[in-house]
């Protein structure tokens, strides 16, 4: 009766709130989050359904203009705009993180202009030092406290471990999905992956895992595979959750790896519990997610820094992606005003250049009108790499 696999992903991608609305009608609590730094395990363990709030590129921003300036992260602006327009009326609350200033500022304004029953803001340190990690863990403890009050439930170690297991399973499944883009032609297209991941982020963890299993099975077995195109590209950026953007990038190329927050990035590694579950989550989220917002540096000695070594320390993980996925070129794709990532552009370009991989920076303003020029840039880039 119900659609399965890619068809189901397509369905959820186009109507992402439907399932959580149904669940809410059945009495479940639903909490929205705009950023992958929120440890979803803590929500799931308290029987709360997390829902990733995404921007809507096709929706002209009208309401957010009252409260935010125009030169501001267009994704957060769009998220807030949709909220102010009542698009998130199915949510019981939101959780935001100090992952970047635009999110921090938006969080506070969000709380000021919308009246959801639950709201929590997680402060995040800028570095990965031990004391920073412990502070981050204490912030997560704070979130547990407010979530327990809100849900009227007590967090049990047993349920938390089960939730960690379920999300680790999800990470593994997404990693397996990206394994299928290693062959040429890839078994699954970048555009399909965007839809699948957005669907997964809009569903409870077990349903997301089921969907991923179905998709894996389906794409391995299907006869009609994506075609091999001019080049195999790596996408590096903040968040690309819109299939129209991905299909522009894929018009003459295969995007076989998406190093961004609606691609591989949130699903890298796994949470390893040694003793304390919350500390394990803090370690995983602060250290494993490769968002530009976290300050990391590699120095030769405590007082001497070498640029090449620093690049290696910051971007070294990209090297094996380049070779394992046989990448021909890199698209650095950012929305305008994404400061943390924009500061990285010359350095990450230097790193790719040191590997002999051409890279091009494309900035867009998160409107449909920016798609046609984006296509010209991608094609011109493909023409330069032959």
């Amino acid at each position, binding site marked *: 009766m119900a659609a399965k696999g890619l068809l189901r992903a397509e369905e959820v991608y186009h109507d992402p709130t439907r399932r959580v609305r149904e669940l809410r009608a059945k009495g479940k609590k639903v909490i929205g989050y705009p950023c992958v730094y929120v440890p979803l395990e803590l929500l799931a363990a308290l029987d709360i359904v997390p829902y990733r709030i995404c921007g809507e590129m096709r929706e002209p921003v009208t309401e957010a203009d009252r409260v935010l300036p125009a030169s501001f992260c267009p994704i957060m602006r769009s998220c807030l705009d949709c909220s102010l327009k009542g698009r998130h009326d199915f949510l019981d609350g939101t959780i935001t993180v100090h992952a970047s200033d635009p999110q921090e500022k938006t969080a506070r304004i969000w709380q000021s202009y919308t009246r959801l029953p639950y709201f929590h803001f997680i402060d995040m340190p800028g570095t990965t030092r031990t004391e920073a990690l412990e502070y981050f863990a204490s912030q997560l403890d704070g979130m547990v406290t407010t979530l327990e009050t809100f849900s009227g439930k007590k967090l049990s170690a047993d349920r938390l471990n089960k939730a960690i297991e379920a999300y680790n399973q999800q990470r593994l499944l997404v990693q397996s999905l990206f394994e299928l883009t290693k062959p040429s032609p890839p078994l699954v297209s970048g555009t399909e992956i965007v839809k699948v991941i957005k669907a997964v982020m809009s569903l409870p963890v077990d349903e997301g895992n089921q969907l991923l299993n179905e998709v894996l099975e389906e794409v391995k077995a299907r006869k009609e595979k994506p075609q091999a195109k001019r080049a195999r590209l790596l996408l590096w950026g903040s968040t690309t959750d819109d299939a*129209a953007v991905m299909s522009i990038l894929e018009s003459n190329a295969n995007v076989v790896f998406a190093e961004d927050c609606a691609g591989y990035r949130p699903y890298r590694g796994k949470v390893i519990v040694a003793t304390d579950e919350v500390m394990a989550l803090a370690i995983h989220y602060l250290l494993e997610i490769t968002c530009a917002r976290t300050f990391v540096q590699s120095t030769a000695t405590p007082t001497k820094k070498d640029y090449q070594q620093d690049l290696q320390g910051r971007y070294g993980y990209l090297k094996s992606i380049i070779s394992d996925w046989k990448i021909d070129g890199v698209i650095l794709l950012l929305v305008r005003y994404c400061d943390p990532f924009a500061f990285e552009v010359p350095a990450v370009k230097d790193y790719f250049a040191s590997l002999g991989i051409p890279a091009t920076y494309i*900035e867009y303003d998160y409107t449909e009108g920016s798609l046609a*020029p984006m296509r*010209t*840039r991608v094609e*011109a880039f493909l*023409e*330069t790499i032959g």
Partner: protein
Amino acid sequence: MAEASPLHHLYFAGIDIGSTMTKAVIIDAAGAVIAAIKGPTGAEHRHLANEVMAKALESAGLKLEEIFRIVATGYGRFNVPFADEHITELSCHARGVYHVFPGARTVVDIGGQDAKCLKVREGRLVDFAMNDKCAAGTGRFLELTAQSLGVGLEGLAALSQKATKPVEISNMCTIFAQQEVVMRLSQGERIEDIIAGLHRALAERVAALARRLGVEPEVVLTGGVAKNAGMVQAMRAALGCDLLVPPEPLLTGALGAALLAKEHTERLLAQGKPLEVKARRLEKATFYTGG
């Protein structure tokens, strides 16, 4: 040469659908231009790529079947149903400019809707930088501000030559610059000096884009504004180097497209592939902007 080539009886066309003008060039197997036509794109004309092509054919005295391969370029390139291939205007400009100036290494193209700088090696595009985010820094900036002055685009060059002290235009946002122009007029600034100021403001903006790539001689300026001597002068000053301007700066894209069509065919031939002419009709372009 042409006689010796197995392609000698073949012709190639390039059609460049820009935001304001549609251009078509037909070349023969030796690469000589035998027709070059420009027509407006505009809202009401944008479907009429076929008419521009028909005019080019008429001018060349050729039939459509005699064109072996057609490459479409420009922002409307996806929408030319009778084209065999579409290639970005960046690569086509690079190729077209190389044909005119074989020593070209940097191309600055200021179009109606965007400005781009190309790094070129032997006619091949190797890197580029583009501004397409707002009208500031494009030909549209001049068009709109000229409007506020009641001057046509054609009048700009002559007037700017009479400038004695170009005024400082502080606002690069087109809308604000228009207001500023009106304000400057009311302050009694001479129209010539305002125009020279506008040229300088635009040139500096585009020069910053070019420096992102590194400006290496020879530098070639193309696009509609290259026909404006005042703008060429301002661009020379902003880049601090000499500039070459092709005799037909609007046509280098279409020319490059035609040359790329020819080279593609030569490659097929070299690979021993059969040359088949595609059956096609001159249909109207179907436009959509979503890509």
